[in-house]
């Protein structure tokens, strides 16, 4: 078995990190990194830890998720981002699509939906 996939959660709510951690616990092959609490911190942690997948919230202090995604995708268009938000209006979804974000997980989410995102986005690179 290869190395575990590194997963980063960028969200100002500690609760969301805990919920994703709980969802991932029964699954093997994933490593959840420490939480990034805003977009700016997220960029630093991506640079440092090179996660395989990022759960990225939209509404955050300092730098929001769409701003962070724009910077991340400019540097690496292949980076895997799952936008997570309670806000899912057409304007946001269109903007996310335009940036190249392919996955959106609306809040509230269920544990199985977290796992589904992990499997669908990371499976092609497994092995």
């Amino acid at each position: 078995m290869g190395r575990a996939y590194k997963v980063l959660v960028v969200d100002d709510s500690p609760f969301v990190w805990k919920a994703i951690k709980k969802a991932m616990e029964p699954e093997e092959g994933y490593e959840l990194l420490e939480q990034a609490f805003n977009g700016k911190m997220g960029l630093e942690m991506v640079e440092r830890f090179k996660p395989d997948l990022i759960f990225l919230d939209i509404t955050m202090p300092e730098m929001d998720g769409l701003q962070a995604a724009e910077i991340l995708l400019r540097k690496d268009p292949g980076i895997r981002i799952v936008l997570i938000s309670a806000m899912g209006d057409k304007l946001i979804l269109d903007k996310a699509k335009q940036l190249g974000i392919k996955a959106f997980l609306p809040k509230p989410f269920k544990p199985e939906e977290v796992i589904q995102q992990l499997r669908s986005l990371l499976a092609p690179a497994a092995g």
Partner: protein
Amino acid sequence: MNQADLSYFCDLMDAAFARLTADKEDLRFSKADGPLEIGGRKFSTVIGVVGYYKGRMQIEMDKNLACKLYETMNGEPVDEEMDLCYYLAEFTNILTGNGITDWNNAFKGISLRLTPPAVFVGDNLDLLTPEVSTASMGYQSDYGRMKIEIGFI
């Protein structure tokens, strides 16, 4: 904000709350006829709304209900009060975000967005925001009472 728009948003919030709690058989809510007062130790979460309209949402509930809500939504009891605060902030974010999304989709161009929430905990806490149009919705359950206050300038 005029009364019709305020009332429209209240309906969206009411529908969003019903959706969020729809499958929670052990925590049912009924809507109160009028505004509710919540006394004693309570949790109050405030979140800002910016865009074409500017205002804030406040969700208030007593501690017993807050703990039950946490347990019902997360499948485990509250361990620490701080965890409860984090959850209530997220709950408010989700509830308001869902309501605002419906509003944004219904009226192109209003582009409403949320600001990060804040949680206040205290005994007989009063939060006042003068000079805004406000509406209040009360909910009752077997575990306590909850109030949603919506205010826009």
